[in-house]
């Protein structure tokens, strides 16, 4: 009886034992499922489908009781950090509080039960919602129209690049290069490639901004456009943005705005006013839709008037009689999602925008930027701050000096911070900062939380320095061993790649 699964004993509550996999809990013949009574004749498989298509044995997935299923996944959640558990100062990710009311919105039967192929006449509420959200996003970004189809930021980027391509193609203008700064997020160059362009990287200057001279040198009529994040991934506002726009437009290029950092400027300034032609937003960042452990997101793309005819279709539009319908823009690049985008994510974001309104969104930017600057100033005595000037909603510190003095790297600081009850910052990004620690407290963390985070980071630095001077060695045992209070200790990433075990079935026998 000991073989096979079904064990509902938990890993010790809040302890460090591993949770067995669903497959270890499985036991042939056990079952959770039950199905609605229908009264339909119970034809056998071969009365439905010709034999040649039928499998011989049922697909062996897993066999667990509902009780064990529930216990298993509940226990897994106890091994998972989340916004609802604590602060998440993960730079570039805008891990703010996700209002619970948005969960209720996403569960409304009137929204959740609508089939995506229902004719427009039967889904007017949804079309209305999409049109209103589009208008709000345009108001926020200063653009003319938007597509809500992209399922995440990267999908938005690629959509934007295809818009760029279509725009130039419509003018008979075949361009081959897209410029991105060296501080750009990895999705930017990857999207450029998929958009069929070559990447030209421009360096950052010593202010941490795009080097205007280098940019000018890189610009010519082969340049389709430039992708910028503003504030950029160092958390710095590109102060030369107006000149940049002028220069890029000067060679006939377009400006693409990576909206990952839009949170910083809500109600303060708008990409459209800066001269951007194409803007993607990460609703799962700025507009508080939950990240879901890695997704779903939503990455709407807004464009300037002249690009509207190229937007993906179909788009929801209001006709003369007030009714809403789907319409393909005349020169549409085509569809980019199976349906209308991550609709329930869009509904959540719209609820968030309604709840905040113009006043609340500005307050978001104010507090996000204030928290980040407070933290930057506070940490400037214990960490390097490579570009130590007023930042926006995030900033990049560096453990370079700490590492030189104590051997403690950015990675160690991150792992040690987990022990302190905080999620780690983003590390080793952007690439242009050595031992980067990218910190974004977000506006929903209170001043006390931000201060506690500062104290924890200070403690980590102080303890490393102390250990280094005490032992005369350069390795701080404490941080290098961290984390020790988490469900598992530091994970062997190299082994995972070397001895790939991508599924339970690929596991070497008997382990």
């Amino acid at each position: 009886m000991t073989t096979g699964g079904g064990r509902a004993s938990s890993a010790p509550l809040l302890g460090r034992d591993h949770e067995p996999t669903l497959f270890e809990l499985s036991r042939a013949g056990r079952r959770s499922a039950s199905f609605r009574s229908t009264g339909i004749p119970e034809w056998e498989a071969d009365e439905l489908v010709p034999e040649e298509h039928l499998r011989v044995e049922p697909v062996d997935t897993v066999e667990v009781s509902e009780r064990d299923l529930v216990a298993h996944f509940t226990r897994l959640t106890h091994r998972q950090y989340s916004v609802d558990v604590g602060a998440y100062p993960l730079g570039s990710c805008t891990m703010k509080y996700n209002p619970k009311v948005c969960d209720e919105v996403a569960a409304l039967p009137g929204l959740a039960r609508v089939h995506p192929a229902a004719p427009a006449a039967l889904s007017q509420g949804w079309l209305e919602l999409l049109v209103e959200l589009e208008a709000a996003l345009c108001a926020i970004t200063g653009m003319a129209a938007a597509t809500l189809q992209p399922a995440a930021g990267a999908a938005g980027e690629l959509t934007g690049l295809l818009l760029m391509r279509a725009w130039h193609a419509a003018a008979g203008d075949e361009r081959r290069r897209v410029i991105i700064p060296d501080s750009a997020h990895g999705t930017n160059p990857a999207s450029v490639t998929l958009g069929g362009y070559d990447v030209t990287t421009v360096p950052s200057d010593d202010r941490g901004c795009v080097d205007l001279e280098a940019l000018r040198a890189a610009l010519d009529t082969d340049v389709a456009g430039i992708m910028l994040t503003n504030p950029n991934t160092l958390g710095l506002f590109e102060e030369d943005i107006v000149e940049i726009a002028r220069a890029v437009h000067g060679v006939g290029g377009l400006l693409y705005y990576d909206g990952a950092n839009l949170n910083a400027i809500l109600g303060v300034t708008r990409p459209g006013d800066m001269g951007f032609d194409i803007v993607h937003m990460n609703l799962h960042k700025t507009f508080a839709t939950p990240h879901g452990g890695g997704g779903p997101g939503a990455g709407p793309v807004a464009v300037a008037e002249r690009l509207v005819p190229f937007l993906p279709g179909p788009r929801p539009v209001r006709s003369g009689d007030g009714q809403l319908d789907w319409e393909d823009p005349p020169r549409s690049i085509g569809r980019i999602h199976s349906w209308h985008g991550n609709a329930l994510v869009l509904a959540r974001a719209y609820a968030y925008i309604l709840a905040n309104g113009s006043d609340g969104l500005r307050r978001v930017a104010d507090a996000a930027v204030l928290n980040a600057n407070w933290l930057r100033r506070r940490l400037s005595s214990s960490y390097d701050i490579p570009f130590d000037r007023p930042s926006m909603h995030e900033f990049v510190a560096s453990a370079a000096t700490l590492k030189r003095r104590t051997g403690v790297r950015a990675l160690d600081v991150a792992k040690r911070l987990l022990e302190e009850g905080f999620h780690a910052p983003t590390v080793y990004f952007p690439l242009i900062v050595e031992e980067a620690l990218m910190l974004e407290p977000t506006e929903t963390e209170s001043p006390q939380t931000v201060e506690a985070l500062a104290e924890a980071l200070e403690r980590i630095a102080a303890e490393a320095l102390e250990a280094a001077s005490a032992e005369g060695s350069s390795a701080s045992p404490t941080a290098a061993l961290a984390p020790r209070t988490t469900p598992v200790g530091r994970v062997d990433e190299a082994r995972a790649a070397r001895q790939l075990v991508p599924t339970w079935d690929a596991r070497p026998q008997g382990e």
Partner: protein
Amino acid sequence: MAGYVPHTDEELEEMLAFLGLGSLDELFTVVPPALRLAGGLDLDEGLPEADVLDRLQRLGGGNRAAELVCFAGAGAYDHDVPAATRALAGRSEFVTSYTPYQPEVSQGVLQALFEFQTLLGRISGMEISNASLYDGASACVEAANLAAAQTGRDRIWVSQGVHPHWRQVLRTFAAGTGHEIVEIPLVDGVTAWPDAGTDSGSGGPGSGAPAAVLVQSPNFLGCLESVPAARRAADGAGALLLVAADPVASGILRTPGEQGADVVVGEGQPLGISLGFGGPYLGLFTCRANLVRRLPGRLVGETVDGEGRRAYVTTLRAREQDIRREKASSNVCTNQTLMAVTAAIQLGWLGTGGLRELALRCGRGARYCREALVAIDGVTPAAPAPTLREFAVRTPLPAATVVGRLAEEGFLAGVAVGPGFEGTPYEDCLLVAVTERRTRAEIDAYASSFEKAVR
């Protein structure tokens, strides 16, 4: 207003003072004055939570489709979602966590994804599954990209039986990659692959050999395709075989893996995910082990921690955009993790027997419904090929009219085939899907309303 900023006025001032600033506006002096928004955003003021909920509920009230008994499918299916799946997938640790960049505090999501990958491997018959893509369409695009990279070719043969939206998305993204999408027509509801013998050298339709052959089974019209035939077509052209499969149908159908697929993609919505007007859904992507280094998106692997305890981590990250940048296998970053976790829970709830029963029940309902519809004067099957959960019928009136009329009777009658099938015999057909939720009484009522509507 329901504000989520905790700072009191006093705290704002204390913090500004620490920075030597006199006002919040001074935080933004780096923004050139000309760019600063004068009057604030052109939006209404914020609303209290209760008003927000009311407003969205009213919008929901405008969706008559939500109330109709659903016979629509076309890639999105009205399955029952059990309470356990809903409750577990709604646990806030799953919902509000980020991508598991810090594995030591992300074992919950990582293990759930590892289990998802294992389950997907089992139902598709493949060795590798990623941790999700956006949707069925994006999974097809990534499969095409993988095949092109693997073969160094840039043509993709796509069966016309592939969901028309997915075909459109393939074409949209092909504008960037330069791939050529060649559609292979249907005959009698299933793909008529070019003869392998004659075309093997040149690669058949289009010019030059294809990187891959993409077939969907059951296809958009509900017809079961012959995967072996597609495999032969691929072999004939030296191409990879990409199969778009339905996870529910896998309960009784042979796996694409055992029939020779190199990559199996699909739409995971039927695995516990609500209709939700089309999203968030779940792009499924599985492949053979030899292709793992070109896998798009995240992959979770098992490893150990410093004390030898079992642990999970995202692995082979060198494929990904944050490391490989312009040379990455894909640009995907945020994916649909929560949906993958949902699917793992749902597959766990269904279990081996339940998945089979689910497939059977869909098939039974569809057969019962098909027989009732084709008994109606003027209603005929669109194709002779076998079907499972979904089938297409030719109707005496245009399909859209039938849908409109039946909505008045309380039914979402199906999906008009239309776009993507222009000029084919299927263009005017109605696609009807029957899930395990539909009772005999509902189907009887539907058929009798149908009869009246087309009379």
